[in-house]
């Protein structure tokens, strides 16, 4: 089991000053390179001496990856923009408040000052068996310690488990999916843009990664189109304590309501599956219906169809049902059921 030793293994520290240089370095060093954004995920791994990269590429000196740029068709957020800057940005707050709400609930103020949007969406799973260095599936082994009869799996997945049952820990991810964001990736073959929901990978595809980034790839920016600018947003994060904690579950929805009916909607939940989950069936079911408690109840019941709880996380089913219900019908109209 890993023990924090506070002394990181030796590695070559590379600090490029441009995205192009960073991408070339990542390409050059391949699997031996570790990408560090804010360092909040990285230093855990390194100080625990579980990850021992030969090369660490520190992105903090790349100014072009920082900042929020607005244009006629939305905003572009550099991958190295801090969560605090995003939470406080006037355009984000006024037009894309879903994202500012989501990132404002990440961890603590100190962490948000250091943590970046790119790092938040690209961080690794928080399953303690995995983080402690046990040889589980995600670490290249042949077992999931959490998915055993006595495994501690209260925080783990109720959907999409495929050998590994760890959930995606990002708070920003469901908000970005709901806002129909696009992720811009520099690859050895050039720039590639993917939909937010396609950025994340489930264990059925690759059990050792949570996203599609491969060796030599660099997430440079996240673009949010104006599709849902100024829409009705809902974000709720449920956690064991109100600061500095990962989500037990969160929900993000962006709705355009006209005449009381839902005209357009995107809704996503996180911490229920190995990747943030867009609820397409719910979106299809509620489109054209009133944004009220009745529709919310129907949506909540639909959302949990197919959930498979583990030994200690069955509570996530009513939790998800109610979060989705609140996201559609609003908090004041919702009542908790279990």
């Amino acid at each position, binding site marked *: *089991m890993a023990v924090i030793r506070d002394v990181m293994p030796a590695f070559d520290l590379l600090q490029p000053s441009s995205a192009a240089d960073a991408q070339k370095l990542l390409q050059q060093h391949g699997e031996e390179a570790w990408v560090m954004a804010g360092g909040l995920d990285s230093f855990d791994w390194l100080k625990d001496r579980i990850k021992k990269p030969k090369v660490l590429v520190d992105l903090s000196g790349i100014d072009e990856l920082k900042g929020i740029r607005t244009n006629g068709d939305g905003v572009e957020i550099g991958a190295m923009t801090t969560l605090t800057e995003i939470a406080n940005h006037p355009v984000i707050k006024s037009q894309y408040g879903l994202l500012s709400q989501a990132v404002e609930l990440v961890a603590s103020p100190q962490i948000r000052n250091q943590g970046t949007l790119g790092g938040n969406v690209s961080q690794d799973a928080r399953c303690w068996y995995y983080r402690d*260095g*046990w*040889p589980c599936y995600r*670490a*290249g*082994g*042949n*077992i*999931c*310690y959490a*998915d*055993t*009869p006595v495994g501690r799996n209260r925080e783990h997945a109720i959907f999409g*488990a*495929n*050998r590994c049952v760890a959930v995606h820990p990002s708070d920003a991810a469901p908000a970005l999916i709901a806002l129909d964001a696009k992720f811009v990736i520099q690859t050895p073959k050039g720039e590639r843009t993917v939909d937010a929901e396609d950025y994340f*990978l489930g264990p*059925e*595809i*690759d059990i050792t990664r949570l996203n599609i980034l491969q060796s030599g790839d660099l997430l440079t920016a996240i673009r949010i189109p104006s599709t849902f600018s100024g829409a009705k947003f809902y974000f709720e994060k449920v956690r064991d304590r109100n600061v500095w904690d990962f989500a037990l579950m969160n929900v993000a929805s962006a709705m355009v309501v006209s005449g009381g009916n839902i005209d357009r909607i995107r809704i996503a939940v996180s911490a229920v599956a190995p990747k943030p989950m867009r609820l397409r069936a719910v979106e299809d079911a509620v489109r054209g219906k009133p944004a009220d408690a009745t529709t919310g109840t129907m949506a909540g019941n639909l959302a949990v169809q197919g959930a498979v709880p583990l030994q200690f996380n069955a509570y996530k089913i009513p939790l998800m049902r109610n979060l989705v219900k609140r996201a559609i019908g609003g908090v004041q109209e919702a009542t908790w059921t279990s």
Partner: protein
Amino acid sequence: MDFITWAISPWGRSVPIHIAWYLIWVAVIAGLLFMIVHALYVAIFAAPKKFTKNDSPAVLAAVPERVPRHSLVARAFHWLMAISMFALLITAFLPKVGVKFDWVTYHWIAGLVLTASIIFHIIHASFFLDFWSIWPDKIDLRDAKRRLLRSIGKEAPPPDRFAKYPLENKLYHAVILLSGLAVIVTGVFMMKRVNTAGIFTRNPYLFGDMTWGMMYVLHGLAGVGLIALIMVHVYFGIRPEKLPITKSMIFGYMSRDFYLEEHDPKRWAVEESSPPQKGYAPSDAD
């Protein structure tokens, strides 16, 4: 360079977790090398086949133009097994070499198909075919020695023609039987570790870490061995001199000429009316 990847279990023990994946490439290269060496040997060094032939006119008269070799059931089994084997190899190893897709479900389904087909084959071959026809006999061993001596220019009588299966077929069958049983037995146990839509109840505690690790290693070793074996099998299947045998696995019969050239009617009787002696196989169309 380790053949096995090891890890430290939560109890501090060093346990194997799987084979080193570079063995995939070792198997591929071994298969390719075998093909190249064999093809060069046949093209440059190998002498033409020469067999002892003393077929009586009565025997010759009894051989039909189309000699039944594989029944429809036997062919269906072979091709079903082939499809499932290819599915298993593709789903097992492509993800390991970088082609990512949702492979686990397809893998265990293909594994179940292979297991069912092998069980059927064992029953079919044991009770409805001549079980011993696929195992090497004394004549095979004697003739193998003769062929070896003749291939290196030594004096030796010509070997007899083959029974239903040449010795190489029999040896290949034995090797693939071992590797196939290894992947099946270990694979069935490994299904206790994944969700199988209710077919197996998950029980990751069925064995200890060391036993599970050895099971994964054996599964992997047999699996990469099958890569080379299947490559070689396909290679022989498309070699010109073996095409009549391959065609017989498609159409069920081989030509009279090929049969009389390579197979000994005394060792592989085709007459429907005469029951075979033990070890002397009839066509399984019988």
